[in-house]
């Protein structure tokens, strides 16, 4: 388990690893030594907790590296920057759009049943269509963002310089 733990530590950014990996492995070794005497359930729970903790921690530290890490990820309960929050009206508009899509699909379904009754309902193929569309869109967006990020053109590196509450220049 210690080898697996050390392997997972490689998911962390290099600087973080240099600073904390030995210490984390040492703490893990002590905790693991103690948990060996516990019940099977406790041992499994410990391993799951440690694995998830490392995965989440590594992800958090990478995000922290990208966003600059100064005030962007605080340990307060609600740590999203005010300028990145969705306005409430967005939720309302999204609900309207969702309602519109449902109505359009229902209308298309009615037309299909009228002219091609044996073709089956559109609703059955809709989840697959939506799933593939989302997958394709997100996949494409990630690839494009990855290329732009590698070229330093996403602006992500400049996020750390944003002053919360600052005004745009005239």
């Amino acid at each position, binding site marked *: 388990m210690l080898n697996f733990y050390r392997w997972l530590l490689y998911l962390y950014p290099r600087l*973080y690893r240099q600073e*904390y990996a030995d210490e984390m492995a*040492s703490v893990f070794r002590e905790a693991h030594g103690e948990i060996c005497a516990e019940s099977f359930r406790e041992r499994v729970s410990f391993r799951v907790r440690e694995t*998830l903790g*490392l995965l989440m921690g590594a992800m958090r*530290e990478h995000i922290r590296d990208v966003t600059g890490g100064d005030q962007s990820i605080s*340990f*307060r309960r609600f740590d999203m920057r005010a300028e990145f929050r969705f306005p409430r009206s967005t939720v309302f508009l999204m609900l309207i759009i969702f309602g519109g899509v449902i109505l359009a699909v229902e209308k298309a379904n009615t037309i299909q049943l009228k002219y091609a009754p044996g073709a089956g309902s559109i609703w059955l193929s809709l989840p697959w269509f939506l799933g593939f569309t989302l997958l394709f869109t997100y996949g494409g967006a990630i690839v494009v963002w990855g290329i732009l990020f590698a070229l330093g053109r996403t602006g992500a590196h400049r996020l750390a310089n944003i002053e919360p509450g600052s005004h745009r220049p005239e």
Partner: protein
Amino acid sequence: MEPLPLTEPVLLVLLSLAEQPRHGYSILKDVERMSGGRVKLSTGTLYGALRRLLDEAWIERVEEDETPRDRRSYRLTSRGRRNLQLEVERMRHLTKLAALRIARKEA
């Protein structure tokens, strides 16, 4: 920096260090003991919190020559202690308010 409110794990880590300097494993065990076994921190969560607290200068490392690198201790700074006191004060006020409201409802 506005210190409030803190998440429970971070609050427990700070409370653990308020008493005396501790190293990582000692913090893990103390947090578990203080919460009656309810909060069990993983090492990933603990060191994520310690790093952020170090960055904000709420805690600092205890520099000792003979301490091995993998067993370093941490202690609260005056800033961390002040912010912890503010958080405890906030919670005390909230508890008092809640008790008053509940008593008024029952009366």
